[in-house]
């Protein structure tokens, strides 16, 4: 009788062990399927998610110049020009309207795999006034962040109500309706980066031409306080760079609408000074590098292809002068930079369309 009970118990234990093993396998398979489904649903648009996804594919510690910030930076800092003319290995890890709260977590994530020689921080968010933003293009750019802590941090930083964070973290509640827009390209892994190929370095060209005039600015030192949350996070960014021992350079991108930014930027520069951070304001009328406001802008704030070439030549020159940036051309570890630049310059004469999805994201 006792033996039968022991046998029964052993049999049950075996059944349960097999059940738990199957359950774990099923859960893993389901998670993998859900992860891929979420990946397919993520809109692979120009607003920044691809640059984060693609960033993980860069060989460890190869990025020498890491640019973080808004669309003004990704449309202006032409990584192909920096490579072609100076041999600088740069990567634009930017997204549209990216506030400092998102930049901070993006940067934290980025520095896990790369140790750049200099970080370029786009100054534009200094003039952003919102405390929080659920705007799709801002929050969706965080979907490219792989690690849970930084992704959750970026999501929570965007949301006024922390209770909403779970929806964004799980992704499906905010993403699943994207099935209406899914095309075959969405299934490709790694992402096609809008047809720019697997060597792409985050630069997104704007090929329109819009006539503007040089901004009329009284070049004074008057400061205007920036949004408190933007200040909180930009200070965190400066501290992070200091902690990691990586030089950070503020970059004020040339911008026809600059008159609105000037006083905010003065304030930002004063904060940067507290951390020993310097920067270059490329709107400074004393800097003459051949940029034409009549032909080098795609719209009221983004440089177009021609403008990005002119601007990046100057930027490369300044970077070379200020930081110890080796010329990586010819280094086999940097083949992808060479390939990206070759492909881009090949397309340059006929640049008409980027081939990216261009619908407006709310």
């Amino acid at each position, binding site marked *: 009788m006792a033996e039968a009970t022991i046998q029964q118990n052993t049999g049950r234990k075996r*059944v*349960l062990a097999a*059940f738990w093993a*199957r*359950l774990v396998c*099923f859960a893993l*398979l*389901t998670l993998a*399927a*859900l992860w891929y*489904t979420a990946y397919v*649903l993520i809109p692979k648009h120009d607003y920044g998610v691809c640059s984060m996804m693609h960033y993980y594919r860069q060989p460890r510690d190869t990025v020498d110049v890491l640019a973080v910030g808004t669309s003004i930076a990704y449309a202006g800092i032409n990584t192909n020009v920096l490579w072609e003319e100076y041999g600088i290995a740069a990567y634009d890890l930017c997204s549209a309207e990216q506030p400092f709260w998102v930049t901070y977590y993006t940067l934290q994530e980025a520095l896990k795999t790369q140790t750049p020689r200099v970080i370029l921080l786009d100054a534009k968010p200094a003039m952003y006034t919102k405390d929080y933003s659920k705007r799709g293009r801002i929050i969706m750019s965080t979907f490219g962040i792989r690690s849970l802590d930084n992704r959750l941090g970026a999501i929570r930083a965007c949301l006024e109500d922390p209770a909403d964070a*779970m*929806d964004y973290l*799980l992704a*499906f*509640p*905010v993403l*699943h*309706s994207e*099935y*209406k827009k899914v095309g075959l390209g969405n299934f490709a892994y790694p992402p096609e980066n809008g047809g720019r190929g697997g060597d792409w370095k985050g630069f997104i060209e704007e090929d329109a031409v819009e006539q503007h005039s040089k901004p009329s600015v009284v070049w004074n030192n008057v400061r205007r306080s920036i949004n408190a949350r933007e200040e909180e996070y930009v200070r965190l960014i400066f501290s992070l760079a200091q902690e990691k021992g990586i030089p950070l350079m503020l970059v004020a991108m040339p911008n026809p609408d600059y008159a609105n930014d000037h006083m905010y930027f003065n304030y930002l520069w004063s904060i940067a000074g507290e951390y020993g951070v310097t920067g270059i304001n490329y709107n400074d009328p004393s800097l003459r590098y051949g940029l034409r406001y009549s032909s080098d802008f795609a719209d009221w704030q983004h440089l177009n292809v021609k403008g990005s070439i002119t601007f990046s030549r100057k930027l490369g020159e300044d970077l070379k002068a200020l930081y110890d940036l080796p010329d990586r051309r010819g280094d086999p570890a940097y083949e992808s930079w060479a390939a990206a630049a070759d492909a881009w310059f090949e397309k340059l004469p006929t640049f008409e369309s980027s081939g990216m999805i261009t619908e407006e994201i709310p």
Partner: protein
Amino acid sequence: MSILSIEFLALVGAVLILYYALPLKIRWIALLAASGVFAALSGWQGAAHLTAAALVAWGGGLALQKHRSRILLAVCLTAEIGAMAFIKLYPLLTGAMLAIPLGLSYFTFQLAGYLIDVYRGKARAASNPLRVLLFAGYFLQLPQGPISTWKELGDQLTEGHRLEPVNIVSGFQRMLWGFFKKLVIADRLAPVTEALLKEEAALPGWFVLGGVVLYAIRLYADFSGGLDLVRGVSRMLGIGLPENFRRPFFAQSVAEYWRRWHITLGAWFRSYVLYPLVTSKAAVRLSRLVSRPLGKKTARALPSALATLLVFLLIGVWHMMSWNAVVFGGYFGLVMAASLLMEPLWKTLQRTLCLPKGGWMRPLRLIRTWILVLIAQYFAFTNSPSQGFSLLRQTFASWDFHRFTELCTGVMPGLEWLIAGIALVILLVVDLICEKKTDLCDGLARARIWLRWPLLIALIIIIAVFGCYGEGFDSAAFVYTQF
């Protein structure tokens, strides 16, 4: 707390772990704790009402076991049902709102049934008030039933169940199926009903009829989906909740429809209202009184017909507390009463015309049942009987198809219609399989992994992608939660 929320899923996960981690004898404590958390999170007033109702039933049950007094039973039932009626009628009478406890009707009916069963000697009164509290407030049946009897659920809840893999797998599958029905079908069809209510004046007949058919399907997917979900979770805990739907749209008659639709409500009214009425002295007296003028057969059927009419009026009022309810319940009551009274005539006709029981008569009977059921639906979702009648008139008015595309895409885009169509086909296929083989869930739970896993993962992805929830969708509350 909605049973579609992440919080609910987290609660279910915690309960599952705690339940199977505790020693067998005290596993029910985990259920009690979860029910307490669920009820409290759904509103403290509701939790207080539930506790008071359970205490009344516990005390009443013990007293009824000692003294089988009809007066005592009447007092207890008045307390239970009176409180429910007061809460439901208060807004109608005063215009002021009262917080309606979650699952008010469900736990009231269960407790009333418990008291009657103890009085009848069909159940032993529980000595532990917590057991009665758990019976009334079991968190999985609180939102929308099913209405269980003490015999079905009382012991099951407290006896403690061992972890059985087949229960976990089968329960999980049923839960997923519930999510599919609710999120992919029911909520996707919700805009159709809204369109009917919004633009009733300008709608052609085919659109009204289609909308009412889709409303009936939506209601089925919504209610049965919610119940599949909770029955699945309960099954994972080893606790079987009674079936509430058995593919009602395959019914061959209205009577059969009601034996397949909201089964536990029908069973409750049959056990505790219909049978006592039919077997009462008054019914016997009435039968005797009319046997001479109407004949024996009709006289025997008359009390049942009248009792059925009353029961359906009550069911209607339970559903809505409005004039629509009176029309809805009265209509079903009349149809059922008429079918009872005309049964002998129908049998004679069947014999005379040599009509077969099966064969070609089956689809005809199915269509007849659909038509009779659909007429009632016109009053189930409209705001007033006049609106219901107006839509009914419109169904026969104009069948102009020139606005077909405009009307359909006005309700929802073509892609959504396509998804709804595919989902309905899946529902139909599954229901047809279930009609032949009683439990598809159990069958699938025992199927080979290579068949089961891809199906389940596909279902999870379908729900995650095509479910109506989160941004871009208005996830509707369960229709039957309000009761």
